């Protein structure tokens, strides 16, 4: 299994004008040549094999989109080397485009006024897909999702979920080696999310397509990715199996309790009592992330029981979401 994407020491810098405050400042800025350099991506190295699904995670502004734009050939790295499918994407934009598919969650790339099947036919011509392959792909799609009602509907009349589904199908149509999915489940309801996850999973299995997935939805990560890469402020924080990450935080347990009264107010006072642990509250539960190397869960529970009337409790493994949150906040040692 060769590497389909190789990224070596890639850095991308943008020049940004140093802006001054106020009206006087903005007039001065008109004549200013005072630029600062911002590193959107800072010395990233990774290799991705054919057929992998990689979750590419990071908070907003971490440099995810910039990395993807470099891999798709839209942006040129300031330094370092990127090879996708053995070629440099930026200097071979069109050739690279033949082997990749791209979906941006909220921006449809289909022809707005045309029914889906007509968009497919135009894509068939653009990517020069043979009849045989095209029919095979449509047959595969029909076996995976119920596309019959979508095929003759103009994209403009589709719901967000249907449009995202269509965009994903369109991205896989020319059987690309790599598909980039940028927040594919954003804004979708639960059943549509799971439909789309199943579809991506099935297409990856069937066609051995490499999938690079950026998302803020940990459900996507749990359902699809064996491997995750986390970046923040342009730097790579983590690149490994998701299981490895969980074992890294193996001593953490999530203790969930339900009490009488206002949960978020109580969560605040628990936060004061237990300063080492992160405490959050939703409508039903107060969650305390306990590191058992610091104190046992049972001790924490005992301490809480003295001050609060606990009606119900649950003990859970650390969730992916919490792992990622800890890495954003504290980094990996």
């Amino acid at each position, binding site marked *: 299994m060769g590497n389909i994407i190789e990224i070596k020491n890639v850095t991308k810098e943008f020049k940004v004008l140093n802006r001054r405050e106020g009206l006087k400042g903005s007039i001065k800025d008109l004549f200013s040549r005072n630029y600062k350099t911002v590193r959107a991506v800072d010395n990233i190295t990774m290799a991705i094999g054919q057929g992998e699904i990689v979750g590419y995670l990071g908070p907003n502004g971490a440099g995810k989109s910039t990395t993807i734009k470099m891999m798709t050939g839209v942006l040129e790295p300031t330094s370092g080397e990127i090879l996708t499918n053995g070629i440099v994407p930026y200097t071979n934009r069109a050739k690279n485009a033949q082997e990749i598919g791209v979906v941006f969650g909220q921006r449809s*790339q289909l022809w707005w006024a045309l029914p889906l099947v007509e968009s497919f036919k135009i894509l068939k*011509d653009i990517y*020069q897909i043979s009849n045989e392959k095209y029919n095979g792909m449509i047959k595969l799609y029909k076996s995976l999702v119920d596309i019959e009602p979508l095929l003759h509907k103009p994209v403009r009349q589709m719901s967000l979920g249907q449009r995202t589904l269509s965009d994903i199908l369109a991205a896989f149509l020319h059987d690309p080696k790599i598909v980039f999915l940028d927040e594919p489940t954003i804004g979708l309801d639960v059943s549509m999310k799971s439909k789309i996850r199943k579809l991506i999973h099935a297409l990856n299995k069937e066609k051995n397509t490499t999938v690079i997935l950026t998302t803020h939805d940990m459900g996507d990560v749990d359902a699809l990715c064996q491997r995750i890469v986390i970046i923040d402020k342009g730097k790579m924080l983590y690149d490994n199996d998701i299981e490895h990450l969980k074992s890294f935080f193996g001593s953490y347990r999530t203790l969930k309790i339900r009490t009488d009264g206002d949960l978020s107010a109580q969560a605040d006072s628990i936060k004061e009592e237990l300063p080492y642990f992160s405490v959050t509250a939703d409508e039903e539960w107060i969650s305390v992330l306990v590191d058992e190397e610091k104190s046992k869960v049972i001790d924490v529970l005992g301490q809480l029981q003295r001050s609060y009337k606990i009606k119900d409790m649950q003990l859970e493994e650390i969730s992916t979401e919490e792992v990622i949150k800890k890495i954003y906040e504290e980094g990996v040692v």
Partner: protein
Amino acid sequence: MEKRGLKFYLRIYFKILAQDLKSKMSYRADFIISTIGMIFTNIAGFVSFWILFRSFPSINGWGYYEMLFLYGFSLVAITPVQCLFDNNWSLRMAVYSGDFIKYCFRPINIFFYYQSEVFDIKGLGQLAFGIGTLIYSWVKIGLGFTPLILLKMTVFLLTASLVMIAMQNAAAATCFWIMNSFYVLDLVTRFKDYAKYPVTIFSPVFKFIFTFLMPIAFIAYYPSLVILRPDEVPLLSWLSPFIGAFFFWVSYKIWMHGALKYNGTGS
């Protein structure tokens, strides 16, 4: 795999065009209203032209039918830009909203892909109107129909179209660099209205501007001299096909330069 040459692009263009027309026709009211609107715009333009010539029988040695010829010529010449390159008007929005990035992910020419998306059918009414005006003035002037003159006509109409397309491309492409590019595009479109007058009526400064800086004199004046005044054709008229092609090439390069340095917005 077949090389993506002219044949490839033409086939794709007609496929998109056919689908686009089909979907446009399905909005019958919209289609009819915009067609009627276009007809009225043209009639209004013609009426104001006619009123002008009721008062001035000739402008700087140019008679009524010659001016009418110039008018029809410019109408026909701006049809291609109206029909085929109308998406330039939306470029600004696509660039600022970040939607433009989708054009960067296909293995085809970005300029082609972008422009192919819209075919403005309203331009066809203008074409019919322009051809009618042209033929009417042609007959009245008594130009005659020889193969040579028809060849000249075709070549110079194409020239004029190229200049018009070039100006619009360059103006639209400014949105890759500046925020308020609408005014640039609007300015160019307004200046195009001066294309239907002989450039000799303007002062030397404007004559220079309209010939070299904002080359609207090439949309109707210089090309039509070849037909109307075959005895006193200036060098610039003979050069205009090359100048037209050159302007188009330059504007394409500017447009593509902007498109390729496009970063998109965050998402």
